[in-house]
């Protein structure tokens, strides 16, 4: 039997105690991996909000907070803003929401946030400003009153595809196409002609926002300031970079928190391992005396105990990682509103970090007991009852 097999075999001598130590560390590893997968997923989706081709600036009513769901500004702003310097194109959009009705099967899950479908009215030639570069199928025609296109994740959660019918505001619409932008908010919604949505929601000639795309060499911040200066107290702007920064700040916080949790897990895990290994060394005092008597070097005894500690934490790494991956997948499947929003990250970095932490806990937790074992006086160890 090789020395390595001995080291791997020994932790299974006291199965209960080793299992408890493994569970303790595995919980820490699980939290680290699960948080890593989710924050990694969120980071990826933030990245995709900064998609090339889409509008850089969103113009809305001054004093409004965030996304307006009703027509709050005049559609004419879209043409007015177009005349400002640095503006390449503009699109007035109307955002509305509507709960699914009779045509969707009653037990089908509802898409969108807050249980409603998010519907955007936009002219079909302006779709690229929303980040929709291509439509799978055909897009709606601007003067149609019964055509919509639907985002990929919304299509999945409603179980709809091109050619199907969907009931909105009591009217049947044909899905002419599906799209995918990579932005989870956009992909979780429906788009129809602007005028049709204005009519349905009695918001004639009104829009929620004006999307602005700047000319190729213009500075986004400069154009943004030009717009607010041109319409003081009337319009306010937000840039895609702004909102990405806000999200990144939030993610930064989550990331700091997950490092703090990792540190705590290392600490608790290490204390558990030290305790387990000190007990092991204590119980095996005589045996360690025998190993010294048969000629084992102190460094081999140190290596054995340290190795056993690392075996414990590496088992915990495997257990914790498997639980985290399965757990995150199950959670995202059971709660589709979250599942649609987040695609968990499987970045190798997350697993390497967890592996590194497990290894570190094994070394930190095993070092002191291993050192003590290696320093035991052989005669005293052999006299030990």
């Amino acid at each position, binding site marked *: 039997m090789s020395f390595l097999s001995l080291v791997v075999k020994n932790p299974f001598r006291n199965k209960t105690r080793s299992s408890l130590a493994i569970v303790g560390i595995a919980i820490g590893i699980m939290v680290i991996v699960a948080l890593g997968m989710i924050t990694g997923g969120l980071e990826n989706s933030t990245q995709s909000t900064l998609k090339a081709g889409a509008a850089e600036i969103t113009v809305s009513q001054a004093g409004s907070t965030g996304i307006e769901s009703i027509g709050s500004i005049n559609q004419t702003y879209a043409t007015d803003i177009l005349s400002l310097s640095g503006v390449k194109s503009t699109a007035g959009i109307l955002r509305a929401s509507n709960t699914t009705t009779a045509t969707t099967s009653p037990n089908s899950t509802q898409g969108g946030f807050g249980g409603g479908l998010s519907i955007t009215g936009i002219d079909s030639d302006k779709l690229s400003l929303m980040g929709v570069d291509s439509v799978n199928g055909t897009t709606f025609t601007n003067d149609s009153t019964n055509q919509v296109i639907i985002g990929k994740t919304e299509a999945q959660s409603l179980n709809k595809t091109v050619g199907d019918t969907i009931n909105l505001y009591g009217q049947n619409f044909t899905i002419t196409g599906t799209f995918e932008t990579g932005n989870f908010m956009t992909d979780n919604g429906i788009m129809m002609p602007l005028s049709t949505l204005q009519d349905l929601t009695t918001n004639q000639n009104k829009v929620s926002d004006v999307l602005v795309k700047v000319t190729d060499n213009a500075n986004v911040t400069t154009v943004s300031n030009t717009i607010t200066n041109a319409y003081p107290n009337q319009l306010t702007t937000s840039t895609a970079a702004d909102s990405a920064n806000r999200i990144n700040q939030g993610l930064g916080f989550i990331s700091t928190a997950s490092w703090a949790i990792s540190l705590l897990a290392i600490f608790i895990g290490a204390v558990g391992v030290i305790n387990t290994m000190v007990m092991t060394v204590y119980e095996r005092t005589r045996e360690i005396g025998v190993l010294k008597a048969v*000629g084992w070097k102190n460094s081999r005894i140190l290596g054995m105990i340290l190795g056993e500690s690392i075996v414990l934490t590496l088992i915990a790494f495997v257990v914790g990682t498997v639980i985290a991956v399965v757990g995150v997948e199950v959670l995202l499947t059971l709660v589709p509103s979250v599942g649609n929003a987040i695609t968990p990250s499987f970045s190798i970095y997350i697993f390497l970090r967890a592996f590194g932490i497990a290894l570190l806990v094994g070394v930190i937790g095993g070092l002191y007991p291993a050192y003590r074992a290696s320093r035991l006086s052989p005669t005293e160890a052999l006299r030990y009852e």
Partner: protein
Amino acid sequence: MNNNQNIIEIKDLKKGYDNGKIKALNGMNLEVKKGEFISIMGPSGSGKSSLLNMIGGLDIADEGTIKVAGIDMMTTKNLNKFRSKEIGFVFQMHNLIPNLSVVENVEIPMYETNTSSKDMRKRALDLLKSVNLGDKIDQKPTKLSGGERQRVAIARALVNNPSIILADEPTGSLDSKTGEVILDLLKDLHKKENVTLVMVTHEPYVGNMAERIITVLDGKCLTDNKTTNSK
């Protein structure tokens, strides 16, 4: 030191414990020839185990001289190498590792000897056959009788071909019949392999199997007599 055939040479050896309050060895003198079989007798606490520990390099004496297999035990560092090469210990308690099989237990001392796993296994199996445990190699020690366990311990002590076997009351925890089997085994080994055998015991009939009997009292050698077994 006057006889280069001596494998053990001890002069005026002293060892105290508890800051010198206990004098485990108090001027011990002993010479053992290569290939000799001696038994050390004496009451409990007289220093027999301490003497064996000094010979085996498990502990270092405070004063005096002790040379074993040509090595000065008072000055040599890293005695683990010496123990691995020259010494085979057999204790009163078998001290086998409970989660390892019999054959794996016998392999334990070979980790320090650069032996391949395959050769380790072969050597351990050969020895287990020679102590009549060829059919128990994969058993856990807990499944064995006391005598069988002690036979495993003897195989373990022999696995690195030591020049000296140090046996500290090897039959102390066995009934007399099983004890005899163990003693016969040790005696056989001594005869066949010409290994030096130093055995501590407090049972006179066990001591009488040796070629020479040393009696120890208060950390000193009291008597030193050849027996009828002497060559």
